[in-house]
């Protein structure tokens, strides 16, 4: 090992370790092993040269283009920004910290709940039942704590697709390689024919969570749902937040503890409670991720109220594009649960013709329904009222 004969207290080693610490704080997975590799790489280079130190760290500690942006910032923080590797001005957005609302402990289980409409006779179970139907926007802090616990238990079973790979089976097509191998094992004696069938793989789920101001009552709960889906789900799940910027938060949500994960998301998302540019961000999502594979054959779930500040025509165009890439598009709009809801928000009305299933997603029960729809176990096809919205899509097209 090269590192053994390196002076561990030497300046370059300490520098690399310092960069590693800044990187970890910035959310890059600069593990111990990677730091050791960085030191080893630096040993093969000229540690007195700034660019060599830069590249030794970057080649070993980064694993993703978004890491590079963070690495540049961390490097500049340790070394002071001066060279061309320093980040541009737009790389340091003003961040708003997401504060988790601490729940006051006074409203334990009994007396404190008289004001939230639960009769004193209600048992714990029925209380849970009621909570399951409660709209997230109408929760008291004490209820929120309980709802958070219920949210953490949600599961997203997901859908399956047929894989190109095969597995041995009693039925299906004849597996030639397997049959010949069995034949050879018997020294060329005619043997049984062996069959193989296409394997089934889980279908990817992509959650696009709206964190704009108009969704503020719901976004925290929806992100908790996303966390449960990504952590406990049986399918590969990708999570993005949309607002004024598109942020991939899958990594942040991979933290085990929901509170820590949400705090990490709050750090990573710069546009908390801002405006909405659905069309532009959908386009960015499709360009940067979707078209490359993330959306292909996936079930896309958009959790948004469809409030669009930007160009509605662009939103329609991008929804059509997404429809061609994805297997299914599910739209969850918390406002749908309100009595007499009509999809009148211009963005929602434009997007709806391209949506396969339209659900509410404003309470625990609604999210459970959403999970069933995503898994294909039940459907909530978009119904067309034939009103002035003027969508005409054939029924059964979904």
């Amino acid at each position, binding site marked *: 090992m090269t590192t053994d004969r390196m002076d561990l207290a030497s300046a370059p080693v300490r520098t690399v370790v310092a960069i590693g610490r800044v990187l970890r704080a910035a959310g890059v*997975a600069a*593990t111990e*092993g*990677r730091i050791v*590799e960085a030191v*080893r*790489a630096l*040993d*093969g*280079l*000229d540690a007195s040269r700034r*660019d*060599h130190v830069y*590249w*030794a760290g*970057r*080649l*070993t500690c*980064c*694993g*993703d*283009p978004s890491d*590079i942006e963070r690495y540049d910032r961390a490097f500049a923080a340790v070394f002071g920004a001066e060279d061309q590797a320093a980040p541009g001005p737009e790389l340091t957005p003003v961040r708003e910290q997401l504060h988790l609302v601490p729940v006051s402990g006074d409203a334990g289980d009994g007396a404190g709940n008289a004001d939230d409409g639960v009769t004193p006779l209600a048992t714990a179970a029925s209380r849970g039942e009621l909570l399951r139907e409660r709209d997230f926007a109408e929760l008291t802090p004490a209820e929120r704590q309980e709802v958070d616990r219920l949210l953490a238990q949600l599961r997203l079973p997901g859908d399956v697709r047929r*894989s*190109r*790979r095969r597995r041995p089976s009693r039925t299906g097509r004849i597996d030639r*390689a397997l049959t*010949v*191998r069995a034949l*050879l094992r018997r*020294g*060329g004696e005619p043997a049984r024919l062996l069959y193989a069938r296409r394997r089934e793989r889980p279908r990817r789920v992509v959650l696009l969570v709206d964190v704009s101001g108009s969704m503020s009552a719901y976004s925290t709960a929806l992100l908790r749902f996303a966390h449960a889906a990504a952590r406990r789900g049986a399918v590969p799940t990708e999570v993005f937040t949309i607002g004024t910027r598109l942020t991939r938060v899958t990594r942040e949500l991979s933290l085990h503890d929901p509170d820590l994960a949400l705090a990490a998301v709050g750090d990573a998302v710069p546009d908390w409670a801002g405006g909405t540019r659905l069309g532009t961000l959908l386009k960015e999502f499709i360009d940067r991720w979707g078209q*490359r*594979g*993330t959306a292909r054959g996936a079930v896309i779930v958009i959790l948004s109220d469809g409030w669009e500040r930007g160009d509605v025509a662009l939103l329609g165009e991008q929804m059509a594009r997404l429809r061609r890439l994805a297997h299914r598009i599910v739209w969850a709009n918390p406002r749908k649960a309100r009595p007499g809801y009509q999809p009148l928000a211009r963005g929602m009305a434009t997007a709806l013709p391209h949506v396969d299933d339209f659900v509410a997603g404003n309470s625990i029960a609604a999210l459970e329904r959403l999970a069933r729809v995503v898994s294909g176990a039940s459907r909530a096809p978009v119904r067309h009222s034939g009103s002035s919205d003027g969508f005409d899509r054939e029924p059964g097209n979904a």
Partner: protein
Amino acid sequence: MTDPADRGLLPNGVDDPDDLRSLLAEHAYLADTGLGTAVFLALKLGRPLFLEGEPGVGKTEVGRTLAAVLDAPLIRLQCYEGIDATQALYDWDFPRQLLHLRAAEAAHAASDVTALEDQLYDRRFLIARPLLAALETTPSVLLIDEIDRADDEFEAFLLEVLSDFAVTVPELGTIRAETRPVVVVTSNRTREVHDALKRRCYYHWLDHPTYEREVEIVCVRVPEVNRRLAEQVAKATQALRQADLFKPPGVAESIDWTEALVALGVDDLDPDTALRTIGAVLKYREDQERMGRLDVGEIIAASLGA
């Protein structure tokens, strides 16, 4: 640091990344500092190089050039969905094994069954697929192209091969690389490759080149071109990259375009010629249609006029 045992596979006379970059340039590949350093470290410390970037920025070409620089055979493994060990590592040659059995039968030589069995699992009946071939060839450059197309089981399997540089064939035993092959893994990022694999490699993100570098690359790759045309092509491609396109053109496209223009005998790019040859640069109908709307002529005229 100049201890010969410590040099890995570095060619003679290469002592730092800049030497390596000039050596790559001699083989018509212009690498920037980052890529030069990455390749230098990969050669010196014998770790795989993981290259990610937009299509057409020259990822695969790195492998080809390295093979030329090291004067080693290039062994290429093109990944695709459903690729598995028998296509990537090794496979037994069933027809030949069967023929061998039949031949033994015909010659009535099958007296000793165990001996016949042993003959069946001889090295000569083993077909070496790219990974095994690379382990058995010293030196060699192993190019694992578009790893993102393979599925994740294959990635896990690759991880195993790339960490030990050894392969175990149950019937034959373990085959180990004498010296590690130079490994270049490329990805177009159609999906995220698992972190464990990246951790074993030097990760480098290849960007589109700057204008000056692109002119140099075009001149080096298409020697017949005059410098003015190269500059015009680079300007136009850079402008197209800024335009809102489905698939922005890479360096590969600007080289293609230049070749097309040279073949047509053009030595001065005007918007009209540019439009006629746009098929070399924009390869999506949507993009060509969009160009109709955005007016490619104007973009190119503006970039040429600038």
